[in-house]
């Protein structure tokens, strides 16, 4: 007698019929998708399609008009603080304490994510996050002296440093120099191999072709396609010729 098939792994992120209205404008309309542990999923779409609005609802920064988001089983709208404990987030326009150095900012991020916020975090972790982001030489300069790309690198390092189970990265590779982008993508893939879930919004489809498991295409606020990364050419064609 054969044993029953193993149950599917629990969902890391469950987005159900998500909708966001701004007055008469519907920015996001009945968006649904699911992310499982170990998956790296690309969220793509033209500018203004609703990707950032979706990200903000996923992270609890915006309330959905209808629908729900659950992160590791936590309803984000009801308990955004609880959901954020499972999330590492890089928003489209990251905000940082401008009068800290990157090392101080990342140390702080690691500290408040730790089980004991009063305990200093492991310096090796901070160095590793700085290395991935490519900030090594500039780690002790104040952030207000940084370029936009370096701001983003610091935000990425803050999201990565505590190894949260779910990473939401909105246009997180924009403005990064190619070697840094490469390093970050490799690090994300490595995190996924260790069971983390990554949702990465980007306009660079080739990057997704290399590391993503799936690609969710959003057009005019709706999910137009949810395909395996092997069918990236179809997504590319849909982006070129929207229905």
């Amino acid at each position, binding site marked *: 007698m054969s044993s029953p098939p193993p149950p599917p792994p629990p969902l890391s992120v469950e987005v159900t019929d998500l909708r966001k209205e701004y007055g008469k404008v519907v920015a996001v309309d009945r968006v649904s998708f699911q992310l499982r542990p170990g998956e790296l999923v690309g969220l793509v779409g033209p500018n203004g399609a609703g990707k950032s609005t979706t990200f903000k609802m996923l992270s609890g920064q*915006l309330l959905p008009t209808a629908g729900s988001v659950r992160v590791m089983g936590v309803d984000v709208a009801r308990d955004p*603080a609880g959901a954020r404990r499972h999330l590492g*987030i890089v928003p489209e326009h990251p905000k940082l304490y401008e*009068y800290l150095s990157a090392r101080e900012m990342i140390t702080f991020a690691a500290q408040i*994510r730790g089980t004991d916020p*009063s305990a200093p975090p492991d310096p090796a972790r901070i160095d590793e996050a700085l290395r991935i982001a490519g900030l090594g030489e500039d780690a002790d300069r104040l952030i207000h002296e940084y370029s936009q790309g370096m701001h983003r690198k610091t935000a990425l390092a803050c999201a990565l440093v505590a190894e949260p189970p779910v990473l939401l990265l909105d246009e997180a590779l924009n403005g990064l120099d190619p070697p840094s982008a490469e390093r970050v993508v490799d690090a994300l893939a490595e995190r996924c191999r260790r069971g983390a879930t990554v949702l990465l919004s980007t306009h660079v489809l080739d990057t997704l072709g290399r590391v993503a498991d799936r690609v969710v295409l959003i057009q005019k606020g709706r999910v137009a396609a949810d395909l395996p990364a092997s069918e990236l050419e179809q997504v590319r064609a849909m982006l070129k010729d929207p229905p």
Partner: protein
Amino acid sequence: MPNPYAQVHRRIRAHQRPGPTWILPVVAAGLAAPLARPVLLGFLDGPAAPETIAAGTDAVAFRLGALVASAMALHTYTDLVRGPDREVLDVHPVQARPLLRAIAARTARQRWYLPLMAAVLVSPLALAGHVQAWLGLVAVVVGAWLCSLGVGFSVHLGAVWVAFSPGLARVLDLLRGDNPRMQAALIYAPGVVLAVAGVALGVASAGVSAALQGWAPGWAFLALPPLVGLAGALVAGPLADGFYVRASALLAEIDAAWAGVDEGEEERRVYLEWLAGDRPELLRALRQGWRRLRSWPMGAWGLGLLGAMAGWSADPGAASQVVLVAGAATVLVAAVPTRLAEGDPAWLDQALGVRAGPVVHARAAVAFLYAQGAILPALLALLIRQGGAILRPLLLLELLALVAAFAAALIARRLRGRGAWAYAPLGVLAWAGAAFLSLAGAPP
């Protein structure tokens, strides 16, 4: 146990090296003290009976305490709800209670000089020999500061709870006017802080008054405002656990609702653009001023209406009242150049090759124009009721507007957004000077 948020605030301060920002306001209060004496401490010129001193101290303690409580109600809102921490921490898990403690400590550290300013401003009371009355007055103001610090954080967090509460949606709809429903709770929160602090400091100042007249237990009433503040601080912790993080989504909803309204109004807006002619710096200042800072002129015009109410009187002292109220509005709105400078980044000016001189003139012109909305209605009311008596207040107020607007614009050129700190004491001084000149020329 070290508080990571407080540690970060300390590090930021160490890197910023902001310097003693309290010195200028306190020195300005010292310089303004003799000028403000006839306005605030006119009772010293009457008979020195204990009842007169007690009643005068009571009135001034209550008013200065209310002023400090109002300032703290707004500061606690700005620091907790719209403060710099929120946009950074929005993507991180937050332990709300230690964060609240760190924010409260920073607010207290940055605003501790407010009671000191009040103490210096009323120092002529002590110099006139009424040291006990002065100490009582200062104790009331310090109590108001402590009260509004503690109550401020709890009320603003409570407002977030109210905004999310489905059971209170109808109440908010009744109150909100044209504002988004969720904003209604936040709009009225500073008023609630002031009301709570007002009751407590009313009791405290009455206690001081009674004590000055010989009823010693009256001093015990001074404990009420700090105790109310302590109670507020104790409530704030649990409220922060539930509502600090949720406030972000609330603010996003409010901002999005206003962005929608702004787009709808775009075609109907009046920017006084026709005044700009071929001066692009003035056009930019007019547009930025109205689109980004219109709450400043609108607030000042609201104060100007109060000035008009004061001017609508046959009382010979009405002209001085107009200068006091419309002058305050003028000094307030003349700060607009410093706010404009905050929104015009230096790198952009450099990249565009913007010349500093025309920018100073443009910002000063915008502030001067906005001030007219506060000055002219008050003078019109005075003109209707008193005819020719408006020449002196007209000259004083226009001179005040001109001086304050240009001072703010020149300061903003050097210090940009930080210029507000330098402008504030100068503005208070200019206002006190105008009030003094107005009272000096008033009929007995």
